[in-house]
């Protein structure tokens, strides 16, 4: 079955709405307009305004409402237009959703799923283009998922809805138009493990979300120069699958982390630290990172592209780690 990432996400929401009457979707423009990325197009007509609910521009308000509904027994899917706007709801996410399980001594969980778009590349300028999922991965009490493939876009939502605690799903905006084949019976996927998307012996490229495809492209360029890179798709940024990372780095002895977030204090910094903590003696080179430039993401196309991780930068970082840049 040929479909887009956007359609895979829609199929997941639709499937969840059918399977569980407690599930509903709410967010800005998700109803009549069909979602700002057209993910929920047609769902209100099918399921009605009770279950596909348009909200005012009030991230803190409707995220808080979703959290309250979850505590009260519903299974809400809250959509935030971009991760930039999610900061308005950060108080609800961090101080309430992530903390209630602990503060109530385990009496209350918050089985909410919060979806949001992340990443740059569509000339939406700084306030719509950042990649802050690494910040959420800092917070205990929530899970942070980053589906990069059609299978994960289709399958992660249901698994997340089964989780008794809050789960955040980050969908990279550049993936929505990506099309591919998806099995007609594709369904829930496990979210515990990272996936090795390409096997290789020379270096581990660790990435997630929208950067996965750039990293795979870099890996195939490197293969032409007889450098076999292993590409790991993290899939979950919290918890991180240390075992898969460490096993790969122990084999290749080198790693470059590709992360669309900013370098300083990033998820890539966390991954580097874990590698050093757990696989220091396996290393053959300093760890490398390809991150976004530390600027607000620019509007002009060429500057925006220059600010983001690109296959050429990944190739250069790999060669540097292999001592092949001299």
């Amino acid at each position, binding site marked *: 079955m040929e479909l887009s990432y956007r359609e895979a996400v829609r199929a997941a929401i639709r499937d969840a709405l059918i399977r569980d009457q407690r599930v509903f979707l709410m967010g800005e423009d998700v109803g009549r307009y069909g979602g700002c990325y057209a993910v929920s197009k047609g769902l209100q007509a099918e399921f009605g305004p009770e279950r596909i609910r348009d909200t005012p521009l009030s991230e803190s308000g409707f995220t808080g409402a979703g959290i309250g509904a979850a505590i009260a027994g519903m299974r809400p899917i809250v959509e935030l237009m971009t991760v930039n706007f999610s900061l308005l709801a950060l108080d609800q996410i961090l101080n309430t959703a992530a903390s209630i399980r602990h503060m109530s001594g385990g009496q209350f969980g918050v089985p909410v799923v919060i979806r949001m778009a992340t990443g740059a590349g569509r000339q939406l300028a700084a306030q719509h283009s950042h990649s802050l999922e690494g910040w959420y991965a800092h917070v205990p009490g929530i899970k942070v998922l980053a589906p990069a493939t059609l299978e994960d876009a289709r399958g992660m939502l249901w698994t997340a809805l089964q989780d008794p605690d809050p789960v955040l799903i980050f969908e990279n905006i550049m993936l929505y138009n990506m099309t591919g084949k998806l099995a007609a019976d594709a369904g829930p996927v496990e979210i515990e493990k990272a996936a090795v998307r390409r096997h290789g012996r020379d270096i581990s490229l660790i990435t997630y979300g929208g950067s996965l495809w750039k990293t795979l492209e870099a890996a195939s360029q490197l293969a032409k120069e007889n450098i076999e890179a292993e590409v790991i798709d993290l899939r979950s940024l919290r918890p991180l699958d240390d075992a898969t990372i460490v096993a790969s780095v122990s084999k290749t002895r080198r790693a470059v982390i590709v992360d669309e977030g900013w370098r300083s204090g990033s998820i890539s910094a966390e991954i580097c630290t874990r590698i050093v903590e757990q696989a220091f*003696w*396996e*290393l*053959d*080179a*300093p760890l490398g990172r390809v991150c976004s430039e530390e600027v607000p993401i620019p509007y002009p196309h060429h500057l925006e592209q220059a600010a983001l991780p690109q296959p050429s930068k990944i190739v250069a970082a790999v060669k*540097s780690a292999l001592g092949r840049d001299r």
Partner: protein
Amino acid sequence: MVEFRMPSLGADMEAGTLVEWLVKPGDRVKRGDVVAVVETQKGAIEIEIFETGEIEQILVDLGAKVPVGTPLAEIRTDKEEVKAGMVARPAREALEVAASVPITAPPGAVPPAAPVPLPLSAGRVQASPAARQFAQIHDVDLASITGTGPAGAIVREDVERKHAAVVRPIEKKRALGLDLDAMRGAIAAAMARSKREIPHYYLEHQVDVTPCEAWLARTNATRPPESRLLMGAVAMKAVALAAHRFPAFNGFYLDEKFEPSSAVHVGMAIAIRGGGLAAPAIHDANRLSCDALMASMRDLVARMRSGRIRSSEIADATITVSSLGERGVEALYGIIYPPQVAIVGVGKVVARPWIVDDAIVPRSIVTITLSGDHRVSDGHAGALFLAEIGKLLQEPDQL
């Protein structure tokens, strides 16, 4: 305060490992003293000092491999007063300043925001954790390995390669301080560079050495075997004298220009048992008598084969003579050892029919060849140079 630095012992040397200090702080040294032993790809070499004074401080520990030019010790020369309360400069600082290697990357190849690795300091072997762990488990000496990793660091593969090389020929007999594989690598690098950079031309000249042989027979008749003269010494002397008269074949080609040398230090190509080749110099060979030359040659061969030669001998030959006569070939064409500009080959002495005064007579003939550097000389000058050697060999008693 004068710094005593790791000398360059040939065009192919980049670094050396300090294996022995023969002096300690406080020792008096004078010019020419052997103060340390350094292991290079050409074996253990005794390093001489060129200052007179007192060793103030040793800067490099035993076993450390440091690049050429790294300060090894500080010497207080006699001219300097000892200042009260003078604080010695920390060794580490001196090392890092002198030996830091700038990391260069092609522009644009590395993302600009990537952190630039710190320069490698010379005092410590730069090896990855994986390399260190492997080396520790398999007892491999990291100091003896050249790294291929980022900024030249040793990576695990380098150690594995070294380990495989050591383990496979189960304890190959190894002369003191001599790694024959490394030497072959060094020879290959120097010769490849020579062939790449030096436009060689080749000449050969057949010389009738019958008078020379007769003179040698007379001279040796009354001598015990250990002090007999060999044709090689006579040829060496003739080459040295000719080189002194033809400066275009004696000196160094450095920085795009030729600098003739007034001194004639003739490098003598010596085959090492088990393979390998070195050409330590006999200093001022043109001024030594044939007997003194012969003694020097014997001494050099003996020391070369035991793997101990001096830094000044290995570094400063101004021209090389390669003699394969006793190995049985009639002519050989050498490859110039950079930065020298000529190498003379001396073949086997063979009996040949020769025309002397219109009669065919048996004579002893040796083929002498010249490989010359066309940037410095040409065939015409080369022919005169070879003819001079031939002429000198006609009157061995005058040498």
